[in-house]
């Protein structure tokens, strides 16, 4: 009995690390999956910049001024916007400081977001699909015949 409890705790701990809790129960499945909203609509930076960016509260309100207005989560988004407070999202994907990943060349060369971020459009809770360690990057770079020069990512 005791060991089962401990095991459950452990699993919960690991789960929390991989799939952290968010201030708003945002579901990619509803937005990107059911409603087929393009990734770049919210994460517009990915096309032209190193960071893909998190959509501003104003962008959320752009639709949710009218869409699903009465849902409790939407009310919380609205509260953030009215109080002029940013939503403190918990980060899911983080590379170490010495990795300088640039979204822009990947997007512009047709790498699908799902290749690294996994099937995000099926996720009700955003989670890290697989650890993006160096061998994942290098394997894909080798496969596509792109630069594996160290300076490409490490400066």
């Amino acid at each position, binding site marked *: 009995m*005791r*060991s089962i409890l*401990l*095991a459950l*705790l*452990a*699993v919960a*701990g*690991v789960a929390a*690390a*991989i799939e*952290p809790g968010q201030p708003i129960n945002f579901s990619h499945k509803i937005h990107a999956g059911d409603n087929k909203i393009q990734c770049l609509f919210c994460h517009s*930076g990915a096309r*032209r*910049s*190193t*960071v893909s*960016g*998190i*959509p*501003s*509260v*104003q962008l959320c309100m752009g639709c949710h001024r009218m869409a699903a207005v009465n849902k409790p989560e939407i009310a919380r988004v609205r509260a*953030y*916007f009215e109080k*002029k*407070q*940013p*939503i*403190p*999202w*918990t*980060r899911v994907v*983080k590379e*170490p*400081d*010495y990795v*300088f990943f*640039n979204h*822009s*060349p990947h997007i*512009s060369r047709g790498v699908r977001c799902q290749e690294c971020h996994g099937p995000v459009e099926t996720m009700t809770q955003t989670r*890290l699909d697989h*650890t993006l360690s160096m061998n994942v990057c290098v394997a894909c770079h080798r496969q596509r015949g792109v*630069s594996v*020069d*160290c*300076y*490409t990512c*490490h*400066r």
Partner: protein
Amino acid sequence: MSETNRRDFVKILGIGSAAGLAGCTRTAPDTLTPYVVPPEEMVRGHALWYRATCRECPAGCGIEARVREGRVHKVEGNPEHPVNGGGLCSRGQAAVQGLYNPDRLRTPLVRGAGGALQPASWQEALDAASALLAKARGRKDAIGFMTGASAGALDDLAADCLKAWNSARRIRYEPVAYDSVRAANALCFDRPGLPVLRFAEARAIYVFGADPLETYVSPAGYTRGITEARRAGARMVFFGSRLSLTGARADEWVAGEPGRLAMALVRELTAGDARFAAIRKWAEPFTPERAGLKPEVAQKLVREIRANAFLAVAGGVAASDLADAIAVNLLNHVAGAINKTVRFDRASSLDTVSSVFDASGLDALLVVDANPFYTAPPKAAAGGPKIVALSSYPTETTAAADIVLPIHTPLESWGDYEPWAGIHSLQQPAMLPVFETRDAGDVLLKLSGASGEYRDYIRARWKKFASADFESFWKDALKRGGHWEDAPAREVRLTGADLSAQLKPLLENASGYMLQTYASLAHFDGRGANRPWLQEMPDPLTQVVWDSWAEVNPDDARKLGVKTGDRVRLRTPQGQLQLAAYVYPGILPGTVAVPLGQGHTNFGRYANGVGVNAAALVAQAPDPAAGGVRWSGGRVEIERVDANGGLVVISGHDLQESRGIARSRLTGAGAPAAAEKREEPELSIYPEHEHKPYRWAMAIDLDACTGCGACIAACYAENNVPVVGKEEAARGREMSWIRLERFFGPGETVSAPFQVDLTLMLCQQCDGAPCEPVCPVFAAYHTQEGLNGQIYNRCVGTRYCSNNCPYKTRRFNWFQAEWAAPLDWQLNPDVTARTRGVMEKCTFCVQRIVEAKDRARREARPLADGDIAPACAQSCPAAAIVFGNVNDPASRIARLQANDRRYRALEELNTRPAVSYLERERRI
């Protein structure tokens, strides 16, 4: 636990540790903070550039501030600005360390009943200031308004304020005010102001004691002009008793008293010329022998003056006598330079400043962004006006003030500054204020009882420049960096007044030691001393860091028993100082030189207690010989104290020992033929590296390089290079990726007894790099584009790479670098901040290369020559550093490879550096 048997225990242990370990591979969650309403023009990850004006000295160069996500990270020169045209000196680069200085004033201070300055709220402080001004303005001229050089909106605002305060006491104080030059111009040409010097048009440039390549009036702009002139074949000769950096860059050093030498040349030039009979009479006593000028040298110089477009410049702090300036004016006149290369078309912002100020009879004095008590501490213990100081930093003046109001630094403020009449240079905030400070203009408007913001005040002032739609004009002006008006030509003529009396002091021979104080390259008049980069950058000639020094001639040093590093005492009627001595072959016997700018008592952690304040030796009173403060020329006594000077000199050995690292050659008529260059074949037993499509290379023109160190400061700013401080610098642990190597040498010509060779040493990005095969973990490797890569996260810190580097350009992180908040806001987000235990070095600003390639890809165009400029190349006011793709035959760098002045350092080691140097030319 009694129920748990061994099996369960193992199970728990296993799951627990697995969970713990699994948790270990994930990093702890961060918070991602989006915008609520994003600013329209900003793309995260891309920088925005705001144009403004540098206010680190009165030159007023135009700058662009690089802003990432609302923080300024770097400042660069504005290529469209008429003053500097894209280059920016080291002090300009260090402006960000003023913005993020950890010792900045954060709250207003009011002197309480107990006599100490107490923090107060803005409301309280403004109320106190208003009350003070209200009381004082009952009497006429009881309120003084002091600034530095401030032509532009601030001048107008000051006038408005004074009017509101029933006063006309406007004080413009600059310790370095070039009073003698202006007084000389008043006497000679009836124009009491600084001339506009068109260096680029001159082909014979004679510098009499001034330092146009260092601090004189507009150094970045003058560097640009002088470099342009030299590229077109001009020759520069330096006259003076101390070889400054400017003198070291001249083709010839004629040692002696500058004024006397000028008059000797005037005498030769006016011989037998009826037009200049009167001048000839004044010049009669100045024979070449009297001036210490060899007759053949005099003849050669006279021939040169007659044959070339000529420009002579005088004064500066190091030769601050009126007589010197008059002599040079006469030289310019007889050489035909007046109204040609020496013009008076525009007034300078320095025309109305003075190096002395009179605060007598004032009840209140407003000091805005000036620090008079550093150079001129108040003599009276009590009494004197109540002082309201508006300052960004604690200073000697704020320490004596009654009310201190913390203001924005220039990068956070609105403003306009007119360095030269008609050149209206705009200042705009590049980011929100770092602290709870206010714009000085806003505060002044409030105190003067006016309404509105300073921004609107400036806009209203600028309405007169717009011909049609003001808003679009204003936007254009902000984008350009200002508004430039043409200046109508204004000719001057010699007044004909008898100047023989003013010239008489040149004939006097003084005994004992003469003191020269000079504005230092790093700190100018002291305002740069709280920027750690400027303290850590070695002085180019002495290579001293974090200190002051007294330069002494080697013969004098022998007589006094003084060695470099000994402590000496300097005594003048004004005061005495103890500081370290530096034995310098480039100073004449009988002269002692001390740089200004150190010895602060209340200027923050990086300045307090560092060095000594040379102003203590100089009378801060108008000297008839100078027209203002006589910074140089006074008598001084010097004696040795002991061996504990505590001097830290970065250079190891002062001579090149025939290694050809900083090369120069004599050119011109009479120069020996250049040595035959043997092209050694590049042999290797290894297959050659393929560099496709780009191969980056750099060329450094040692003829253009002035040694100003702008590149060094720019590199610190761009690449998150830490500052280590004096103690660690003494151990050789400074982290600079690019350094100026200075070598002394015997002169190669008869008239130049001593020469200084400079070169820039940075990672040579060798094709056959010795550091690459010895790194055990491939942290040092060769990239496909010709760079020598250093991957910080792979480095284990064995330091073999540095040991094997013949150029010793690799720097190791001996400690964990720390940046006192908010200096860490300045760190470039595109460059890793290195941990301790790893090696770092110049990367040719690979982050800029990557960014440029990225931009070119997004804009669907190939990279063009000039798209990429590493920070050093970008900042150089002389454009001495050229960078580009050597695979492109049309690029500048490719064409420079064939230049006959080109060489590579330590080539014979077969390192095949990607950095080439162009030999310096000494034109005789």
